[in-house]
């Protein structure tokens, strides 16, 4: 980002102004009226020059910012940085949803496998204990052997499938890298927009100073968040007093209400 020169001739102008003011007083005391008027005209000229310069800079900065963020396209949704940020965030929502669904697909696919292995090994274990206690008759023993044999065979393929699913779950987390990059880009853009806006306001301030314009109190209505509509997750839950930072806080609050 190119930082716009904020160095303004304002300070120099002020210095000149106070110097000339002293001069002006001196001339008036000496009854040098023509000299005094000349001084006032000189001041006026410097002020005008400064004003044009300030307005010129402000206009340039405004143009630069509009160009920088490609906001000059007449149609909304035609490739400005804001549109790009919107697209980026939509991509993040999409990627995270896909990853969550893929992970859940694999988990739902794996659960019956691991549950099956647990159930069957439990069954075999019971029979095995009976075998060790010499409680099995030859027919039961043959059945146990057959059971163990099929169990080992199925466990081989089932665990292979489980490994595959775990690997897929691992790979499904690759969204973090991609979405992280997109979000960082958007964050940089937002910060850039903010600093440029602050810059423009400060430049406009110089113009106000030179023209003596006073805006009075500018009232911007802050929208109160409607708690009924919901305000979403609390990012700084730990730091805010009116926010429950975890489930224990919620439980404490509810129990204080007689829950």
């Amino acid at each position, binding site marked *: 980002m190119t930082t716009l020169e904020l160095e303004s001739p304002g300070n120099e102008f002020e210095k000149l102004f106070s110097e000339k003011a002293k001069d002006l007083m001196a001339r008036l005391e000496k009854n040098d009226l023509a000299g005094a008027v000349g001084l006032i005209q000189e001041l006026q000229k410097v002020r005008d020059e400064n004003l044009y310069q300030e307005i010129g800079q402000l206009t340039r900065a405004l143009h630069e910012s509009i160009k920088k963020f490609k906001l000059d396209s007449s149609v909304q949704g035609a490739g400005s940085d804001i549109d790009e940020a919107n697209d980026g965030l939509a991509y993040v929502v999409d990627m995270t949803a896909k990853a969550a669904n893929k992970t859940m697909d694999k988990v739902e696919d794996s659960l019956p496998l691991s549950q099956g292995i647990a159930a069957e090994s439990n069954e075999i274990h019971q029979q095995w204990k009976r075998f060790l206690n010499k409680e099995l008759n030859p027919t039961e023993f043959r059945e146990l052997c057959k059971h163990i044999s099929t169990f080992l065979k199925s466990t081989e393929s089932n665990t292979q499938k489980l490994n595959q699913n775990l690997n897929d779950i691992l790979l499904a987390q690759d969204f973090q890298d991609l979405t992280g990059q997109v979000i960082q880009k958007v964050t940089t853009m937002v910060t850039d927009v903010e600093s440029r806006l602050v810059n423009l306001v400060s430049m406009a301030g110089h113009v106000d100073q030179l023209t003596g314009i006073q805006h009075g109190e500018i009232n911007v209505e802050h929208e109160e968040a409607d708690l009924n509509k919901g305000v979403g997750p609390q990012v700084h839950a730990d730091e805010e007093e009116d926010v429950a930072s975890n489930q224990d806080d919620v439980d404490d609050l*509810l129990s204080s209400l007689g829950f």
Partner: protein
Amino acid sequence: MKILVVDDFSTMRRIIKNLLRDLGFTNTSEADDGNTALPMLQSGNFDFLVTDWNMPGMTGIELLKHVREDERLKDLPVLMVTAEAKRDQIVAAAQAGVNGYVIKPFTAAVLKEKIEKIFERAG
């Protein structure tokens, strides 16, 4: 036990449904906001409602209020599972007659504990 899970994000509905299944509740239905949930509740003989707060259309707190105002639904146990964590909101939910309040992100253990507590109390 017939349960309705209301959340505008399908992934969250899926997570909750999976956790409920793990707890032995297999008869679950889904809705994506209060507007779709309310008619389902009114015609569906549900025994339990799990709802998010922040949803487009009708929010969870509004849904809760509608449920409490409905003669046939007013005793339906309602568990709020939401990212809304402001104290005022939790108090508002309690005043509206919520039976349990779980904040996201949550664990399977917390969900289980709250559900058990609700049914313990309901007898």
